[in-house]
């Protein structure tokens, strides 16, 4: 049995980024497995998400809260509509287990967020833990380690 090719994985990551660019949060969220996690650590190489703070560590329930908030007119900090743009590069499959239908892919991300005359740029090392469910790639974990994750930050409003 053959696992997904590098081309499959690259296409998946680009499609994922395009969903975020398009603010299609619900379609993006459906890429996750039911217990999938979106993680933005606060420390380079951070291993522990439970006993060390993170910028974001979200399960399905918290993603649902955030995604609903994107459309909430009482989300004052989101007024003026932050919009974002992401570029994925240097994709590599670091490990894969075709029998289990799992693989880990790493990539580099350059992204920008714009709101009210201000552009914030992000550079990140991204790791995806992917699983094949019903013939589709699904995200079990997306870990976005910002280059400056341990620096002081202003608002980060979007998923990266």
């Amino acid at each position, binding site marked *: 049995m053959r696992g997904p090719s590098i081309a499959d994985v690259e296409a998946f990551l680009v499609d994922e980024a395009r969903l975020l660019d398009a603010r299609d949060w619900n379609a993006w969220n459906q890429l996750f497995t039911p217990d999938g996690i979106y993680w*933005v650590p*606060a*420390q380079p190489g*951070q291993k522990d998400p*439970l*006993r*060390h*703070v*993170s*910028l*974001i*560590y979200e399960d399905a*329930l*918290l993603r*649902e*809260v*955030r995604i*609903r*908030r994107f459309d*909430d007119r*009482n*989300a*004052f*900090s*989101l*007024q003026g509509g932050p919009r974002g743009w992401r570029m994925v590069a240097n994709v590599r499959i670091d490990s894969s287990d075709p029998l289990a239908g799992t693989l880990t892919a790493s990539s580099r991300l350059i992204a920008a967020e714009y709101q009210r005359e201000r552009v914030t740029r992000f550079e990140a090392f991204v790791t995806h833990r992917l699983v094949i469910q019903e013939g589709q790639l699904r995200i079990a974990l997306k870990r976005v380690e910002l280059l400056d994750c341990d*620096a*002081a*930050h*202003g*608002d*980060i*409003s979007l998923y990266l």
Partner: protein
Amino acid sequence: MSSVEGLVEADRVHRSVYTDPVIFEREMLQIFGATWIYVGHESQIPADGDYVTTSVAGQPLVMVRDKGEVRLLYNRCAHRGAQVVPDGQGNAPLFRCAYHGWIFHRDGTVRTIPLEEGYRNSCFGRDNPDSNMKAVANVAAYRGFVFACLAPSAPPFDAWLRGVDSSIDNMADRSPEGELEITGGVLRYMHRCNWKLFVENLNDLMHPMVTHMSSSGTARTVAKRHFGKDEKLPAAIEILGPFTSNYEFFEEMGVQAFPHGHSYSGGTSSIHSRYSEIDEYNEAMDAAYGAERARAIFAVNRHNTIIYPSLTLKGPIQTIRVIKPIAVDRTLVESWTFRLKGAPDALLERSILYCNLINSSANLVGPDDHEAYQRLQSGLLAQGSDWVSMHRHLGEEEPNEDGGWSANGTSDLVFRNQYRAWTDYMERAL
């Protein structure tokens, strides 16, 4: 002559206190440079030689453990003025300046001066204190929380802390061993606003139900979709939900104000009082203190305590936020979490979750507060009115048992009290 004369009245302040860079500079000198400012926790430097860099009023300091003692030095080489210890933490037997190689002991005294004989007849030499890294004039600690006062004469520490020392006590007493340990990293959130707007907001109990509707209100909606009425809710929902409690809830929490600008809100109830019980923890507390004393510790449940002007803490969830003013419209807020020594990890995990959800710059609650501060910072540039009113429930405060004043939760008492202290600090002769 005082530059702040006429800017503060009993029930209102002039908008320039938030926007004038000259006033900001004076605050750094008269307040942050002249009273007790939180610099770190002793648990950050448990072993001899452990150090951590910190700052007060923009000045670089290094806190170091030397022969068991906590010392605080200006992080500046006596020679040309370079910062000696790079920002961060570590362990070092000695500090060596990267520029001309001067070496200092951990108490700041100079050990090595390269080509020392060339400095003869100058102020430099190993027997001359001018060659040492300078110690900060006043350092005091309460249950591990270390404060510094840069000015030569500091307010008497114990009297200064009175009224809010009990909030530190309650946080530490929640450990079965009575001790706290900073752990779990730090979130540093840069705010585009004056530091006072952040500090004032913490005990502003009329804002959460408005500002946090999109996060807390949405969390409640989502929880209703997934959980039945009597079902145990996930910790994240327990944390987010209470921010949109109604006005009555916050009114009843009450506020307490004390000399020197200190205050806390809540007392017997707060947004933290309804978190799920953790049996293993309760048993550890009962074993350590006896059931009655353990109940008494848990009966104290405060929302935000402000140890004015720099340290704010949340005892029931074991987090602190440290205020570092950068410029008149720029403030760094650091969030730290604590382990209750002797308590199960579940407590720390809840504190971490709380910090992630509330204090992270990428999360759901803090950014809406930040939005409010930014709107204040820009709104206050408008000349439609020069004054910010703090009149709500004026004159209805009553003395409390701890030497302060007590009022209903939505009173502006805390703001008026902060500006009483602010004016005292700003007008006194140093």
